[in-house]
């Protein structure tokens, strides 16, 4: 699935770039001119890219069913500049549908990638983690935890990885039954009691995130708050639209 040979497929003719049959997921699409689409795609070898799909909204376009989020595509494109043209797209895994709440969770994954990844910055490992997270959403089991692990991996890939197994500063191992507060720069720091206005998490939560093992409801809740705080730092003040949709759908619940 990874594109080990993608460099071989890229032939540079003057400044025009041609890329053939790259695996990709569609993150977002917007109508463009009369019958075209602007696409934001996530590929392993080229990172997040923007493409124009000419005529893709036309009545006879065969791409309409293909250019949908959450399904693995093989895409080809050519052109120069910031917005090359899509020259071909086919679906790799027909019959995989996100349904129900998982659709909205999928919007959340895509929004994170759109907001946090720079264009043309390859992240092959993150591509794989995105696939794993989508599998979790498709199976519709442990959706919330799949989102947490993706957030953890996303931060790791961006170079903001969380310190989860050792305390910041003195490097002591995190103990499951101790209480910690998480500092952005230095990592977890042991505290004696919870205090207002400071996000505190149990050592067990940090260790569960490190190992990727899911646990009880309190653990999931703490992980969510921790991730929300850390991600918020990199997302900036503009709220996530997909999180807003969750909030409107379940005004009182802790889903995400």
């Amino acid at each position, binding site marked *: 699935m990874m594109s080990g040979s993608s460099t071989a497929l890229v032939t540079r003719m003057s400044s025009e770039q041609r890329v053939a049959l790259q695996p990709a997921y569609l993150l977002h699409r917007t109508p463009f001119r009369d019958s075209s689409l602007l696409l934001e795609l996530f590929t392993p070898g080229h990172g997040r890219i923007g493409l124009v799909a000419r005529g893709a909204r036309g009545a006879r376009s065969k791409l309409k069913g293909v250019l949908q989020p959450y399904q693995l595509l093989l895409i080809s494109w050519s052109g120069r500049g910031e917005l090359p043209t899509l020259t071909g797209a086919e*679906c790799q895994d027909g019959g995989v549908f996100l349904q129900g709440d998982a659709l909205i969770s999928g919007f959340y994954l895509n929004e994170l990638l759109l907001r946090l990844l720079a264009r043309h910055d390859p992240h092959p490992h993150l591509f794989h983690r995105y696939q794993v997270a989508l599998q979790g959403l498709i199976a519709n089991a442990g959706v919330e935890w799949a989102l947490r692990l993706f957030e953890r991996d996303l931060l790791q890939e961006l170079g903001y990885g969380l310190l989860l197994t050792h305390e910041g500063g003195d490097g002591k191992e995190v103990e499951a039954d101790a209480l910690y507060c998480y500092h952005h720069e230095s990592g977890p720091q042991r505290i004696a009691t919870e205090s207002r206005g400071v996000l505190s998490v149990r050592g067990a939560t940090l260790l569960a995130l490190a190992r990727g093992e899911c646990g009880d409801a309190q653990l999931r809740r703490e992980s969510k708050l921790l991730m929300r705080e850390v991600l918020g730092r990199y997302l900036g003040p503009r709220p996530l639209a997909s999180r807003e949709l969750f909030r409107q759908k379940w005004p009182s619940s802790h889903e995400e």
Partner: protein
Amino acid sequence: MSTPLINRLVEALRCLPGVGPKSAQRMAYHLLERNRGGALHLAAALSEAMERVGHCRRCRTLSESELCPICSSERRDATTLCIVESPTDVEALESSTGYQGRYFVLMGHLSPLDGIGPDDIGLDRLARLLDEGNIAEVILATNPTVEGEATAHYISDMVHRRGVKVTRIAHGVPLGGELEYVDGGTLSHAFHGRREV
């Protein structure tokens, strides 16, 4: 040869879908040279429609009266409500399905990444309509895109909470089509949605 007024007309015609600079110019000259009567008629129809066509108070579709003809008709079944994305979808269903209930037109779909949320597609008004309590079935006829599915799912939750029956239109192979030429996604949807005969 073009004057400021002709230029303005050409520019104005370009707001039509599918009309680029060249076709706009052709239209402008055609109207000026050969069909001034038709052009004046078009101008009058345009300005009257833009001024007088608004939205139906009940179903949000385009209408020039407070209630659209479907909502105000005595013969339509007021207990079924079909939810569609646009007024053209209403036209399509009206001309081919023989559906006798009423509609609710969202004028779009949920698309969080474009900043379109539930209130932007009138779901607050839909909730009030459901709360009035005389609807027995809601038919979700949003488009089979990811956004359309998300919209259908969001609405189905709203409807379920009120204990009303909700159905989704089927997706499948086009009539007269051959399986060989149907795209994988559609075929797989059709396959998963198979029914007993």
